[in-house]
């Protein structure tokens, strides 16, 4: 009798143990992937490699767009003290030495500020390209080119956020360039006037500013990439 009861208890505990093992208890919501079963994280160098590819493509595209407009507008566009790109207030290094002295995080935040500041004007450019009566030879390509520019820059911005999380998960850095979105005073152009010529000039001017800034982004990212490579001798 006693033995039977003992057996029953033993079997019951056994069953319970099995059930508990097989059915895991509800757990707290885990981060995106932090446990043991997660795949190994992508290397930072690989992320930066991907970012540089995106930035290179972005700059090449902007050069293509402006190259089409250069014959028409470059003689008309003379740099004036007032005609500065809206991002000129951002203090970016102008020499290599200056750039090399910056820290990785600083450089990255700078890049991100630049990129973020261009989100509204790019959207403006897309709208302008559709509504603006362009020169004949570029009528077809301008609209999709500017659209492509906008998409690529947004893609790059997302990638840079991922990279930023690697550098510093804290959200403090994200706030540092929070005002970048307001840099561009939407609509207020250096070429006031709503006539066709002024609009075209403004259009071209914005594109040329973007071409420069995309070149900056590309250069800084490549600096970061080489710096992130451990051995450093492979591709740098």
């Amino acid at each position: 009798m006693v033995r039977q009861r003992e057996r029953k208890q033993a079997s019951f505990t056994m069953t319970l143990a099995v059930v508990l093992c097989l059915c895991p208890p509800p757990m707290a919501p885990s981060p995106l992937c932090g446990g043991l079963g997660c795949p190994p994280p992508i290397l930072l160098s690989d992320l930066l490699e991907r970012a540089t590819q995106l930035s290179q493509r972005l700059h090449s595209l902007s050069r293509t767009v402006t190259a089409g407009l250069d014959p028409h507008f470059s003689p008309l566009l003379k740099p004036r003290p007032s005609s500065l790109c809206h991002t000129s207030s951002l203090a970016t290094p102008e020499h290599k030495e200056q750039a090399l002295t910056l820290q990785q995080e600083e450089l990255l935040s700078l890049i991100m500020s630049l990129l973020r500041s261009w989100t509204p004007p790019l959207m403006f450019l897309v709208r302008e390209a559709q509504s603006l009566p362009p020169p004949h030879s570029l009528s077809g390509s301008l609209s999709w080119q500017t659209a492509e520019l906008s998409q690529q820059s947004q893609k790059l911005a997302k990638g840079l956020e991922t990279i930023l999380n690697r550098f510093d998960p804290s959200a403090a850095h994200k706030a540092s360039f929070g005002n970048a979105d307001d840099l561009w005073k939407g609509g207020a152009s250096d070429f006031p006037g709503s006539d066709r010529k002024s609009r075209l000039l403004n259009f071209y001017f914005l594109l040329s500013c973007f071409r420069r800034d995309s070149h900056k982004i590309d250069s800084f990212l490549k600096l970061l990439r080489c710096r992130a490579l451990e051995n450093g001798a492979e591709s740098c």
Partner: protein
Amino acid sequence: MKEACGAKCVLFLLFVQTWLVENTGHTSPGKPVLLRCRSPEKETFACWWQPGSDGGLSTNYSLYYTMEGSREDAVHECPDYKTAGLNSCYFNKTYTSLWITYTISVVAQNALGSKSSDPMFVDVAYIVQPHKPENISAELRTQDQKPYLMVNWDPPHKADTKSGWITLQYEIRLKPEKGAEWESHYAGQQKQFNVFSLHPGEVYLVQVRCKPDHGFWSEWSSTTYIEIPDYFRPRDTSVWILIAVLSLCIFLILAWTVAIKCNSIKSYLLPPVPGPKIIGFDTQLLKSGKSEDLLNALGCQGFPPTSDCEDLLVEFLEVDDSDEQKLVMNEGKDDLEGRVKSSGNEVDNDSGRGSCNSHTLLLEVSNSSTKTFAQVGGNSNNKGSVKLSRKSSTNGKLLSFETTGEKTNTWPTTNSSFLLARQSSCHNISKIHREASSLGNKADMHGNTSTAQSKSKEYRELPSTVSGDQKTWFADEKHAPLLPFKSVEYVEVQKLNQQSMLILKPKTEGHKSVPPEFIGQEYTKVSGVVSDRVLLLLRDTGAQGSSDTQEGKNQAVPPSLQCQVGKMVGTFPASPALEGMQLAASGYVDTAAVLQSF
């Protein structure tokens, strides 16, 4: 006043200037042109200009620039006119700022004036053109016995690729020394490249150039020479060795095949040349026989019956009107073949065919135009007919019909005056060949039995009815004794009448005389008839009318018949041809002679 004075002054000045120009030829300088500005490493840059005409006076050039974002009147002059060469301006690191637009212009000035060039807007970030790559080394290596070229190089020493400030892409090109075109390869950002498409034994030229991400290609580097030695050819040699081994194997296989199939190949490639085939003429027999000369002299060919008498039989067998004869003929053919191996005792049922061994039927062949021969005999089937078949042929042939072996021979027939049948040893003679020849083609024997019949009324008819056993000739006993059995009498077979009856004509009527030369000749006598079908000829030298042997073995054959048969058998003298002719005159069976009489 003042205005007039001003105008006068201007005119004066113009005059002076023109005078000066005419006298001295000097003018203000021409307008210089800015050619380009380049930065080799994105840290410094330089500009070059093209001077205009100097106007005959020493002209100096000055380069002025302003920078974007600074005040408009902050014009700077070129800090360095020397480093970059003549008509250049070099901006070192201090004066170089990226992502800023420079406005550059050159001013040419001489004693008479100055001229300014058009401004050029320069952003250093966009004018990067690096120097050539350096330290190019080409090394020959092998991979799986395959040579390839490994080319290594360094970036230009001024370009800072380590920090990533500038990123270079490379392109390599090479060509054989005597080649016409370069072979280019894009190498990406690596500083090493392997080239596989090489021709051994040639000297190759290798060059490399580079380009930043967003900039201009550099110039091609200095040429590096590398020689591909010839000893990498063993790969070709191994191919030749393989080809040689394969061909050797194929050759061996062919030789073995030929050796095995030697004979069949020989017969295929070199078929035996058939000897001249004269119908009725057997060269072998000729050689062995003695009568060759005579034959040739006579112009008779093929006197000894040839071995392929069957063919002749086939050829020369002609079917008479009666169906019986046709049947006989057909069956005769079969018998011929079937009887090849007939034994001695066997009756050769083929009509006209000499059976057995050692029977030879000599058919004299004459040169008459038409030949016929009678094939008398029975058929196993019997119609037993006397088959008279004629065939006209041009040549007379003597058929020597020897049945030594097995084969019975055919008869080529010609018009022979008589039929000679020679029996050597065998007693079976299946048939007596009768030849009816028509003289001079007059009589178409073929089916002319009626005429013969009409003429031969007085002759003995030999009805040939074949039944069952074949009494070859004549079962007609009624007509039996025209000729007494035991006496030596000869009959001539004239013709076969319509009823397939052999018409015999006794030779006692005047043909009895035996030419002297035939006395003592051999005659063949019918010793008997065997199986009602076979006439047994007895070789009897000189004996005439030994009719004893003629006692019929075959009961069916009446003695008279045998006698007649015996008489009908011709002799076979030594020289069959000649004697045959004469024998015909002597009263032997000679249908031709009989016919002639008509």
